Every structure is written in structure tokens, then in C-alpha cells.
């Protein structure tokens, strides 16, 4: 039986879990918002990683067949999306209950309460099918992993369609309901859920458009075409394999907890590692030539120097100020009433960079408004702001010893294209053109990956296994 290792990175804003196999390959990833309850967030991330790992094992087991039959790949990918939707649906129902409960407690006057309940029901009726559609047809699960973000976007959309006087009370009900719903770990039976997902898929494929050539659906591709009329056969063939992975005993051989909230994890002391070491180790595993790592997370920025083994030789961290970190960007997005995901792309449209003095969460908001009043374009202001963030990170890097080849950027903020753009620019300006900059799609999971790798090496007993510098992906 294969051995698996778990790394849990309990960050300040997101919790990540990664499962690796004996070859240091990531086979499961799980991520969730970290709100008030750290240990629940860690459990949720771990559950997610375990489900994801089952799908990875399925794909691995069927590697050769998938190559020969692309419709298998499509079926499994769709199945995972629908599986995620099934989970989502249960959570959504849970949120629904919470909304009703809050409404009951909050509005003491009967008529008002009834009115509010009616609105809530209508809102739910409106957004539920939209979310389902996005999961089934638009790959929502892989685009956004956060329950809160997905639902709040749709909820806001519906609330904004209503009379303005309803905004305040409906948002209050939302605020009071989302945390208890989000902070509850729902234990799913994988097998039951995956079968439900298979049934749901059957429905989806039955309703596939008649022809791929009508071009009505942009998501209709060649693999889908192969499935049309053939899905019964595909699902029958795969059922046994799916049952196998559902029953697979996912024994975690060893685990390591890291991140901001690591002390809260119910792990023994020797299974807790600093996120500085984990990020560096994870980044080095993916890019073995890495000598400098920059990690920008939710609350902190770390500039880390590593040796040939991926072990930290020195590091510097931001002190008592989260300017430039994920939370800061979230704050700026709120100021501009846009989502965090839109921030970077908007900054990419900058024609110039407006000089931003305040890389301070509190003052930046005021400066942003002032500059807007002075007629500066939003994109240009954001360009300057993103540049300012990187300048701040560069000073921290300088304190830690500078940039050495190769340079790896990790953490959630590495998903922001404007941050990447200015980072590249400033690294080149300060340290020359010969620095190779690495940014992996799994950048946010690097800490959890490092943790899992420490777990595999049993931390104390067997470190220089890292010497092989084997790449994982």
C-alpha cells in the first residue's frame, strides 16, 4: 500500500492542506478560508485534500487508458466538478438554515420577519441554479475554492436588485449567518457523494446539445462530443475504479502543521514546523536551484535565503504591519468596490505608475481617494500601488541578504499578475537580468507542501533526502 504524507498550512486568511506520496508528488490539495475557527478550517482543508487525492489516484490508476480514451479524462474532470458541487449544495443548505435562524432571532416584529424570510427564499431560489450551472458547465470549482466568496458574490448580486432599504437588514442577516455556516465541518461520505455526482452527470450528459457543430455552447469540446451517447458506457466502465478509490484506505503516515495558527493544530510538538522553513522547503523542492524565496501571504511577507538542501540560512519578516500583504490588497479592493481577483488585472492596464507614499493599510485608502479626486486613473493608481508593495518587499529581501539565482515567489499574493509584473521589473533593476524567477501555479500551497515533505522525512531522522532535489509538480 502506498504511503501518504500530509502538510497543513494554517494561514491567517486561508488554510491549505497538501497530501504527497512517497515520491514527493502532490496528489491532493485542499484550501479554505480561515475565519474565526482555525482548527475547523484545518479540518476542512484536510478533507478537501483527501477528496482531491482520491481523484488524483483515480487518474494515476487509469493513466494509460486515459491516454487512449480522452473521454475518460473528460468524465473524471466533470465528475470532480460535480462532486464539488454536491459538497457545496450541502453547505448551501446549511447556510440556508442559518439565514432563516438569524432572521427568526433578529426580526422580532412578525410582518417584517415574514417579509425578510420571503426575500431570503427568493434570493436563494434565484442564485442556487446559477451556482449549479456554473459548477456543471463553467468549471466554477477550480476557478474559486472559497464557499464564502462564491455565495457572497451571488447573494450581493440578488440583494442589489432589491429595494435599497432592504440592503442594510439583508446584509446584517448575511454577516451573522455566514460564519457559523462556514465554520462547520460537514463530514461527507465520499462514496455516497461520488455516486450522487455520477447520477447528476448522467442528467447533464442526457441534456447535452444535439451537435457539437452548432457552436451554441462554448464549452462543448471534442471530448464532450465523444461522451455524447457514450456516457453510459464510460460511467459503467469507470464505476469499479471509482468505487475502488472511494474505498481506498487513505492512511496518513505522518503529518506536519505549519503557518500562523500552527500552535492550535492538534499535532504533537515534533510535527509542528515554522512556515518560514516550510515555504522554503516546498519552494526548493519544486525549483531545486532556488536560493532566495519571497513569500507574501495574508498577513506577512518573508524574505528567505536557502541553501542547496532547501534549508533556511537566514530570513527577514515584516514587523507589525501587514501593508503589502494579501489583507492589504483585500482592503484596497474593498475601497474600490471590486473583488480581489479583479485588482491585479486592473493594475495591469496601467499606462503609468502613480507614486504612492503610504504603504500603510489605513493611509492608503485616503491616498487612493485623494488621487482619484485629483483625476488620476484607477488603473494608474493601482499600478503605483502594486509597485509600492514590491518596493517594500524588496527592502525586506535586501535585509535578508539580497536576491540570488534562482528566485522563487510563493504565497497567495503570487496569484496577482501585477505583483508578478513589478516583481520581475524590480528584481531585474536591482539584481540584474540573470536571475531566474520562478512562480508556480501551486505557489499558495508551498508551505503545506514543505510541511508534507518534512513529514515524509520525519523531520529529524532523515533530512538530507532533500539532497536529491527531486522536482515535484
Amino acid at each position, binding site marked *: 500500500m502506498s504511503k501518504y504524507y500530509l502538510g497543513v498550512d494554517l494561514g491567517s486568511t486561508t488554510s491549505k492542506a497538501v497530501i504527497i506520496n512517497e515520491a514527493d508528488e502532490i496528489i491532493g490539495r485542499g484550501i479554505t478560508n480561515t475565519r474565526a475557527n482555525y482548527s475547523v478550517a484545518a479540518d476542512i482543508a484536510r478533507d478537501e485534500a483527501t477528496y482531491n487525492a482520491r481523484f488524483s489516484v483515480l487518474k494515476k490508476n487509469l493513466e494509460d487508458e486515459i491516454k487512449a480514451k480522452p473521454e475518460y479524462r473528460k468524465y473524471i474532470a466533470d465528475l470532480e466538478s460535480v462532486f464539488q458541487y454536491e459538497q457545496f449544495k450541502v453547505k448551501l443548505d446549511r447556510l440556508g438554515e442559518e439565514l432563516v435562524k438569524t432572521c427568526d432571532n433578529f426580526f422580532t416584529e412578525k410582518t417584517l420577519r415574514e417579509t425578510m424570510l420571503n426575500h431570503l427564499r427568493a434570493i436563494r431560489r434565484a442564485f442556487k441554479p446559477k451556482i449549479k450551472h456554473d459548477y456543471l458547465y463553467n468549471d466554477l470549482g477550480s476557478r474559486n475554492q472559497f464557499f464564502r466568496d462564491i455565495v457572497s458574490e451571488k447573494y450581493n448580486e440578488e440583494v442589489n436588485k432589491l429595494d435599497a432599504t432592504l440592503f442594510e437588514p439583508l446584509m446584517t442577516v448575511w454577516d451573522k449567518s455566514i460564519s457559523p455556516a462556514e465554520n462547520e465541518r460537514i463530514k461527507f461520505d465520499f462514496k455516497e457523494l461520488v455516486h450522487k455526482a455520477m447520477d447528476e452527470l448522467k442528467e447533464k450528459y442526457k441534456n447535452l446539445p444535439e451537435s457539437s457543430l452548432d457552436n451554441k455552447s462554448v464549452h462543448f469540446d471534442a471530448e464532450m462530443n465523444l461522451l455524447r451517447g457514450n456516457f453510459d458506457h464510460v460511467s459503467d466502465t469507470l464505476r469499479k475504479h471509482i468505487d475502488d478509490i472511494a474505498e481506498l484506505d487513505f492512511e496518513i503516515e505522518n503529518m506536519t502543521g505549519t503557518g500562523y495558527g500552527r500552535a492550535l493544530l492538534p499535532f504533537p510538538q515534533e510535527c509542528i*514546523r*515554522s*512556515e*518560514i*522553513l516550510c515555504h522554503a522547503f516546498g519552494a526548493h523542492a519544486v525549483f531545486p536551484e532556488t536560493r532566495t524565496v519571497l513569500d507574501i501571504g495574508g498577513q506577512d511577507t518573508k524574505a528567505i535565503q536557502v541553501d542547496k*538542501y532547501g*534549508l*533556511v*540560512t*537566514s*530570513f*527577514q*519578516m515584516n*514587523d*507589525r504591519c501587514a501593508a503589502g500583504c494579501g489583507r492589504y490588497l483585500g482592503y484596497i479592493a474593498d475601497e474600490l468596490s471590486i473583488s480581489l481577483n479583479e485588482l491585479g488585472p486592473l493594475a495591469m492596464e496601467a499606462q503609468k505608475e502613480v507614486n504612492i507614499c503610504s504603504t500603510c493599510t489605513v493611509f492608503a485608502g485616503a491616498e487612493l481617494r485623494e488621487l482619484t479626486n485629483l483625476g488620476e486613473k484607477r488603473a494608474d493608481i493601482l499600478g503605483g500601488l502594486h509597485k509600492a508593495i514590491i518596493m517594500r518587499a524588496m527592502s525586506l529581501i535586501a*535585509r535578508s*541578504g539580497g536576491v540570488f539565482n534562482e528566485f522563487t515567489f510563493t504565497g497567495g499574493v503570487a496569484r496577482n499578475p501585477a505583483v508578478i509584473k513589478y516583481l520581475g521589473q524590480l528584481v531585474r533593476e536591482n539584481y540584474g537580468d540573470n536571475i531566474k524567477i520562478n512562480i508556480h501555479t501551486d505557489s499558495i500551497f508551498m508551505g503545506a507542501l514543505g510541511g508534507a515533505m518534512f513529514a515524509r522525512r520525519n523531520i*529529524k531522522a532523515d*533530512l*538530507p533526502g532533500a539532497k536529491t532535489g527531486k522536482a515535484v509538480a
Partner: protein
Amino acid sequence: MANPKEAVKEKSMVIQKEMLAKQFSELSKAKETGKKVCYTFVPGNLIELIMAFDMLPVYPEINALQSGMRKKSGGYIKDAEKVGHSEDVCTYVKCDIGMFLNGNIGPTGEKLPEPDLLLLSYTGCFTFLKWFENLNRLYPNAEVAMLHTPYQEDGKITQEQIDYMVKQLKEEVIPKFEKVTGKKFDPAKLTGLLQNSVEAENYWVKILEMAKNKPSPIDAYFAGVYYMGPINTSFRGSPECVEYYKELYKEVKERADKKLLPVTPEGEMEKERFRLVVEGPPNWTNFREFWKIFYDLGAVIVASTYTKVGGVYDQGYRQDPSKPLESIATYCMGCYTNLNLPQRVDLIEKYVKEYKADGFLINSIKSCNSFSAGQLMIMREIEQRTGVPVGFIESDLVDPRYFSYANIKNRLESYFQMLEQRKIILEQEQVQA
């Protein structure tokens, strides 16, 4: 206590406690007994000269750190800020001023007497000048004696510098002492006091060097600040001081012979996992918590620069009773914070190597320029010269608002884990070689 080892340990602590109690009691009665009071600073202090005139010393920065340990500094600092001192001013200064504004009640709860003389003997820390300007306004009746100490810009003390300082001692400082006390300067008395100093200094160096043992029987930073008290402040020339260090040496030697580890507030350490050299003053407001992070993880400080603020004796300097004034001039210029940065780097490098340290850690103090300036350079240099991992944390002397426990613990844990990994690698590389 039943355990004889602990009973012995306690003896030096009891002695020090008695010394301090006696001193504060004398201070509280100074006006009745007619003793004159001299306010001065720890680095480069002229305690033998103060004693030669039978004056009682008061160290404002010691009062501040004591207030910090007793959780009083936060209030004092706020009071000083209310009267206009900025957030960035040295928190020792603000704590001292806050204490004055609150009736000048000293750390033992007894009122501190006003100064008859404000003696500034060291200027490597330019804040001291401003501090005394402030004190001079608060105590307008006090005499002010200012001894200008040349900074060791070129890394050495020249005869011209010594002559320059002796001239000031003769023409400025001693006449002020004579004026305030009404006594004539007695060189023989000063010589006698300096003889005691030499004896105490010899023991002190032997105690510090005990940390070269593996395991180290002392913690040369957290416990070191207690050990350094008598010699670096009020007692250096006194026979009690010699007695104290004689006793302390006996205790430490016994611990070393038995291969015992340092004693912490929670008992004896069990395992020495890391040996560190530390630069910078400790944080006083959370001193115990701060120390605990270290001993919980088995980190022993084998050498520190902070314990050298009152004199770098372990590098060979001793008072010279045959040339009393020249001797105290040299002492004054030789204190750690009067050294230039290359000298500090050399000293730390020596400590890392001689004490076989696994790492070098800096506690950078937000409001202390004389320590913090150049620390990042020091860090890089030490890393390059010795190859040991370096760590960097930030806190403050006595401002509780600038001690973030979670932040510091996170960094220290990361740093200790980094050291641990390195040890494993080094051991394995050795095996392979």
C-alpha cells in the same frame, strides 16, 4: 531548601539583593544623612570616582529597566508622551521622565533623592546628552559635569585621547565633585577602590569564560544581566563587589565541574540544544516570557555584547590602580557601545568562535540608536565570517507596546528550527567526509 546545590546558588543572589536593598535604603535617607547624590549612566560610568567622594549613585536607565520589569514603564512612558515627548524617543528617557512626573518613587518603592550632581561621562549615545538636558530642567539646582568621551572612530584608544580625558577629569569633573561634596579629591582613596575593581574584574572574566564549557553552566545574557549588575553599576570599587563575584565564581565553577546547565526561573535547564551569541539589550517589560522562549527550546546564551556595556574586560582591559585617572579614562572609552562597528564585528566573531556558538542572534531595539545602528551590517558580516546562521528579532527596551509575543516567538521558533536543521546537515556531512 533541601538541595545544597540550590542553597549555594542562592547565596550570591541573596548577597546581591542585600547590596541593592542597602543602596536604595541609603538613597532614601540621603537627605537626612547628608550624603550627596550623583545621577549618571551605566556605559563608561565613573563609579570609583563617585565612591571616592562618598557620593551615592543613581542610574536613570537602571530605574527605567526596573520599572519595565515591574510593569510600570507603560504608564510612565504615556505620561512622558503627554508632556510632549515623541513616540520615537528612547523609552528609557520617557520612562525616567514619567517616573519623575509620578513623584520619583524608585523601583523599591522608596523615593529617590534629587541629584546634587548630574555626571555625564559617556557620549557614544547622543540621547544621553538630551536626557541630561531634560534632567537639568527638572532638577535646576543640580550641578552638571560633562566628560566628553571620544568615540573609537579608528578602532583604538590613543595617548592623546587619554590625555584629553584626564585633562577634563582634572579640570572639569573633579572640581565639580569637590564643589558639590565640599571634600578634596583623595587619589589614594581612588587607588584603593580601583584595586578592589581589578579583583572583581578578574572574577567576572572567569565567570563569563565558564560559558566556554559544554554544556555551559551559565546563561550569559538573561542571567548575565543579573550577574553584571554589581560590576557595571554601583559597586565596582567596593569590597562587597569582590565578595559577590568571589561567591558567584565559586557557584558557577561548581556547576561547571558537575556539568550542570544554567538555572532559569523555572529551575535548571536539562539540555543544551543550541549555543548562541546575542547582540543588543534584552526586552525588560516581558523579560521572563522572553527568556522562557529560549530555555523552553534549550537555547543557552554563551556570550552577549550587552553584558559588556559596562566594560569589555574579557578582552584584557583592567583598571590600573597605579595610574588612576588614566585608567578610568581608558575604561570609559572602552565600553562596548563606544566601539566602532568593525571592532564590534571582530568582538562578536571572536565570541562565536571561542564559545563555539551554533548561532548569532540580534535583538534590535526600536528606540535605541547606539545599539541598533549598523546591526544589519554586523549580521551580514558575522554570517560571512563564521558561517553560523544569524537571526534577527525586534522589540523595545521598556515600551510594552513594542513587544509582540506572537511575532517574536514565531521568529525565534523559526530560527531555532533553522539551527536544528543545520546541525543535522553538518553532522551528516561530517560522517560522509
